[in-house]
């Protein structure tokens, strides 16, 4: 058999065909599909490999990637939205249980209480971390969470058609909002940064009673802290919604969005125990104020009781969703990022409030230590004079993309050239560097020694 996952023996095939009343599988297809639509030639795709051969091939493919890991000869100072954080070993062990991996959306609550309870715990933890009353059961990633937040804001502020995005938001997120809004007659405007942060004076000038939402990221794409208190006040003075993008890892030490009156707070959950995976292991965090609960996109798990009064969990407010409401749904989302949300729930459970604080303080400490080291050698190299959390921007003498490549030979993944995702919007000579809790003083020392000549 060319497909090792099919269990039917030739004898069984005959018996099954007899019961169906067909001479062959072909006959069943011919019954349904006009003959001239059936493709009879070769598709010319690669030949089948046995599992034995495929293991070797996949390992060889993976070996062709150069990754930062102990023993690889590379140390990562990459950030810009995806980070090299510590992932506790327990996550993989328990999240890898087949009930979690292979099941689907818990439409049948009696058969899926485990998953439903895990998502309820996820919602609760995210709500407490962000200090926001409502959290959904996940979206795809940080970028799509911003897109959904903007959609929701436009649904709440129906008379308004402008969205103000700070230029300090992750460029992929900004691009996504532009894509999502491209044909809606909505004006998506960018407020240019000044010295690495959103200038509140410019924001005050830009805002008006036609603005549905003001969106900022804090800490922002450059790692700088934004004046979120003031920005929120400006948004609310014009009765616009205040949307904040916050790294969940930062909230171990930074004031949460709920404390400065964010209306909607979103984020990328990768720092919560997920692998960097080329930016492909993500979970979109979505939280909001209670008033907006019935407008939330995606799945929501609610607490309830069964007929014997036992506590249990169900998917709730499903009339918001596409499978009930169809075109009138609050979002088209169906499959979300449940498994990654589960992994982050296990991460937050292991870390607890103390672990979250320890990791956040270590990120803050390491990044600022690294920044101090750079400033000691090259006082002018740090691009923005702002407090930073987990990353910062340096100015390089040659194009930052070239510096990144040079640093590879010295054993470092040196950071993100800002030109990579921004079409040179910020020029060619800015490099974004991150030092998470995983970096040691020795690594940082050696990194600055190697980087110094390029600054």
């Amino acid at each position, binding site marked *: 058999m060319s497909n090792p*996952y*099919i*269990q039917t023996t030739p004898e069984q095939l005959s018996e*099954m065909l007899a019961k169906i009343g067909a001479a062959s*599988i072909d006959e*069943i297809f011919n*019954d349904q599909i*006009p003959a001239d639509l059936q*493709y009879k030639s070769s*598709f010319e795709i690669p030949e089948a490999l046995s*599992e034995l051969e495929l293991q070797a091939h*996949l390992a060889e*493919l993976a070996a062709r*990637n*150069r990754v930062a890991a102990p023993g690889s000869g590379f140390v990562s100072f990459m950030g810009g939205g995806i980070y090299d954080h510590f992932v506790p070993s327990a996550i993989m062990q328990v999240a890898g*249980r087949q*009930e*979690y991996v292979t*099941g*689907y*959306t818990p439409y049948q*609550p*009696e*058969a899926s*209480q*485990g*998953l439903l*309870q895990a998502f309820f*715990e996820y919602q*609760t933890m995210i*709500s407490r971390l962000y200090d926001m*009353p409502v959290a959904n059961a996940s979206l795809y*990633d940080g*970028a799509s969470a911003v897109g959904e937040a903007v959609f929701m804001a436009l649904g709440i502020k129906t008379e308004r058609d402008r969205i103000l995005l700070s230029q300090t938001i992750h460029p*992929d997120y900004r691009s996504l909002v532009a*894509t999502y809004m491209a044909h809606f007659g909505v004006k998506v405007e960018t407020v240019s940064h000044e010295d690495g942060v959103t200038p509140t004076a410019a924001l005050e000038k830009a805002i008006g009673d036609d603005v549905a939402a003001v969106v900022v990221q804090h800490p922002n794409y450059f790692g700088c*802290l934004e004046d979120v208190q003031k920005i929120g006040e400006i948004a609310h003075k014009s009765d616009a919604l205040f949307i904040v993008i916050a790294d969940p890892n930062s909230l171990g030490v930074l*004031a949460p969005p709920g404390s400065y009156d964010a209306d909607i707070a979103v984020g990328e959950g990768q720092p919560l125990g997920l692998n*960097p995976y*080329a*930016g*492909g292991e993500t979970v979109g965090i979505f939280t909001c104020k209670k008033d907006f609960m019935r407008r939330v996109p995606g799945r929501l798990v609610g607490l*309830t009781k069964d*007929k014997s009064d036992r506590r249990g969990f169900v998917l*709730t407010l499903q009339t918001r969703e*596409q499978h009930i409401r*169809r075109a009138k*749904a609050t979002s088209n989302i169906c*499959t*979300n990022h449940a*498994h990654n949300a589960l992994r982050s729930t296990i991460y937050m*459970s292991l*870390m*607890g409030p103390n*672990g*979250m604080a320890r990791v956040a303080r*270590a990120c803050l*400490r390491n990044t600022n230590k690294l920044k101090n080291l750079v400033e000691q050698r090259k006082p002018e190299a740090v691009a923005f004079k702002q407090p930073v959390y987990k990353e910062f921007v340096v100015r390089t003498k040659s194009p930052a993309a070239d510096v*990144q490549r040079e640093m590879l030979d010295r054993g470092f*993944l040196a950071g993100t050239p800002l030109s990579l995702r921004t079409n040179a919007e910020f020029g060619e000579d800015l490099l974004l560097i991150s030092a998470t809790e995983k970096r040691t003083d020795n690594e940082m020392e050696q990194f600055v020694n190697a980087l110094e000549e390029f600054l």
Partner: protein
Amino acid sequence: MSRRIQIANDGDGLSVKARLDTQTIFELSEPGRTGFSLPPESADTDEIVKAALPSEFRRNTPPALPEVSELTVMRHFTHLSGRTMGVETTFYPLGSCTMKYNPKINEYGAWLPGFTNLHPDQPTETMQGLLEAYWQVQEILGKLTGLPAVSLQPAAGAHGEFTALLMTKAYFADRGETARTQVIIPDTAHGTNPASAHRVGLEPVEIKSNERGRIDVEALRKVVGPKTACLMVTNPNTIGLFEDNLREAAELVHQAGGLVYIDGANFNAIVGRVRPADFGGDMMHINLHKTFSIPHGGGGPGAGPIVVRDFLRPYLPRPTVVRQNGDAAAPFAFHNDPKSIGKIRSYFGNVAHVVRAYAYLRQLGEEGLRAVSDYAVLNANYLLALLAGHYDIPYGNRCMHEFVINATKQKNQGAKAVDIAKKLIDYGFHPPTTYFPLIVPEALMIEPTETENKEMLELFAATMIDIAQKAETDAAQIVDSPRTTPVQRMDELGAARNPVVTA
């Protein structure tokens, strides 16, 4: 720190199971307990944090996360997994979702550190292995569908629909055809279709299916015209039938200047046998988590790549993976077309799933993929044959990879479709999809997939027949199910009326 949920629990609590059954992780919390192991904090941390972080930015109250040990975490989540069904627990015939076995070689590949540790902003020369997998999957999906331009970025099927519809809008905007604002959708469609259309600012126009459960070409003729942006069709459709007049329908749409979108949720029924381009598709999404064996993860992540005709290639989301200069020996690179609709997701998509799909495609090859559709269709038809006569199965005695029961007869006897579904749980099965598609009353939508064996299909059929007989004689005991599960029927109305979404 821990906040306790005040909800009545049953039992006296004097067993480990009772304890684990009735507590959330928050109730297991004990202040001072930890489940992590980190190096000691550097001596200068306080000093640096103080200097670097102005006080107004600081968190004053720590988040009320649980304080639990690693063992408690392991027990808790192991216990929860035991209250959840997976494909390796039992037969999972959830129609439309293709709950087939997920081969473990896919996981072997997906968890290789050479993939998991990649950072998206690394130079492309350091990620050639990944880019090769991307390029290969693009190529193979293009060949299997006849739609050669591919983006692997959409994170789910609905995201693929949304992306392709955005491309449709961009394409017509480029041609100055801005009057094309309608998406024609048959009434058998998934809810995501009209929701996605609405999401890009297009107007869904529903057409009724004909008495054969297929597109009504005459109904289509009445609505197609200069306002048509596209026709959106699932083929095979959600009744489990091949849309055998889709080519004619597609011609009508093309003559009117519109495009044809194929919802590829059911591609597993025809992969290796039919290329959707050949029945008129211009664009299509593919659910890697259905046809190509990616695990469903309890509701995702999925992956919904889109494949389109060459004239739509420039509009694909940024970036796609190409071979530099089209040279077969050249390194792989990212390509950003100036006409691209832009980003629809950060970075490159659900990368691990691309690796899994690559493993699956490489293991099966052409013959193995054809066997997917062969045996998916065989198994569905066998199950249909076993159940025919016991249940009302509208639209004929043959199907593709799934079929739909109309349980109105059982409803009239006192057991609705939902009751039958719940009763199946008591027998250890995961229920089929219920109340979908909407055009079949009391619908039970059954998809066995190719990976189940004859014995399991027969056991399921025998159980279904037993339930049908019980419905005739004693429907009350079906309505009373499930009884073997940790909880019984839930108060869903109460949950929605007074939503409690956090502890």
